[in-house]
């Protein structure tokens, strides 16, 4: 199965995960400060900054795009409950 390496910059931890894993599944297990919220892509609570590797993330869905816009997100922001890692190396600010 293809793997992706997700590095949590503030924690100094890199987790090797199967492709297709959602960011929130990793962040809450690793103890990053992104856990709660609706988990359905509506509240915007789990917004997370992607430092590098955005090209290895799933495309934004219409719903995620809408919520990110409503929360005045930048191009590097994603909703951890929606964004999946597809492979390669990804660094997140958490």
């Amino acid at each position, binding site marked *: 199965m293809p793997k992706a390496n997700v590095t949590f910059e*503030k924690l*100094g931890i890199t987790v090797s995960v199967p492709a297709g*894993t959602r960011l929130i599944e990793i962040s809450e297990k690793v103890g*990053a400060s992104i856990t*709660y919220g609706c988990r359905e892509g*509506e509240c915007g609570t789990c917004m997370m900054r992607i430092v590098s590797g955005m090209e290895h993330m799933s495309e934004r869905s219409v719903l995620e795009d809408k919520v990110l816009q*409503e929360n005045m997100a930048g191009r590097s922001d994603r909703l951890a409950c929606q964004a999946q890692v597809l492979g390669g190396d990804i660094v997140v600010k958490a």
Partner: protein
Amino acid sequence: MKSAPDAVEIAPGTHWIGALDPGLREFDIILKTANGTTYNSYCVRGSSGVAIIDTVKLSHAGEFFARLEQVARYDEISTIVLNHLEPDHSGALPELMRRAPQAKLYISTKAQLMLKALVKDTELDYTVVQTGDTVDLGERTLHFFSTPFLHWPDTQCTLVEEQGILFSGDVFGCHFCDARLFNDQVGDFRFSFEYYYQHIMRPFREHVLEALELLEPLALKLIAPAHGPILRDVPQSYVQRYRQLASPLLANEVGADNKSLLVFYISSYGNTARMAQAVAEGAETVSGVRVSLYDLQAMGDLPFVDLIEEADGIAFGSPTINGDAVKPVWDLLSSLVAIKVRDKLGAAFGSYGWSGEAINMIEDRLRGLKLRVPIKGVRARLIPTDEELGKCHDLGKQLAQHLTGTVDRRVISMSELLASSHV
């Protein structure tokens, strides 16, 4: 005491048309009020349009409409602004829009979802505004300022530029009901102003500071909040007070380059206390971290909440009694909703007799408060062994390394992560 007033002119062509709720003693579960509150709504008349700024709680809609009708006809209303959609300000909105269907509704970007959730009308028409947007009423111009998270995501302020009036929503407001309305005429409301800030605005301190950057440069002649007295006498002093309240409460003696780690503990037989000492000693081996050790049994929550607000990391030591962490720990943890703790570093440890649930429960609570909890806590059955105290020492050292950015970088697999629940 003056009885409920008619609509009150607060500046030429601008009236207070809100409602008084003197009997209220508890607001939103978390706030007490000694003499009720007001739901302030305002009517601004320009030469080509009339704007209504905020409405009132549904239960007080009759009072609001009666005052509105004293100063404007419904068919004159061109503009409705909601600075904040909480039901005590949006309760009368559906009826107002029914009576003034031609009026355009202006809300902030983040208010859209809330509007749809509060007013179950899928056809509702509205315009989204942000800082820099204006609405011309003819000789009166409404300027919008996005001030999110004061205290909801949707909150904004609206300035009437020509009159220097800031309709500030809940910002600079308080729960204090006095029919004399103006800050130079009502009773002494200073405690209400401070209390309101501490309970409503304090968790959003960073957002308060961002908003003040927008609001401080304004030449304000009057602040018209959505609750409590209208601030016409020295309005800038209330802005300055917010600046003081939002600035760090305690002098930062740690030093700009140093980090602060607070270790709290409570102990029945001295076992958790020994673990706390070891955590603190471990942290002290890392330079650049100032470590403080506190016994929760000796003090109430209040000074610790202030300390935690300024700290970079917090560790809690609790024994497990009847399968739970002990009450003083929960009391302090539940007090942390009043401050911002997101992204601080958290950890737990403690001695136990036979099950030791307290550590995981504390860690879950810390995660719920959005702290980072990257290091598995240390548990020791009854009297900690030297090995267990060594683990506490390591816990403290690792916490300090996380705070100083000197932690060893590690790579682990998802399956390892799932197996341990912790790194």
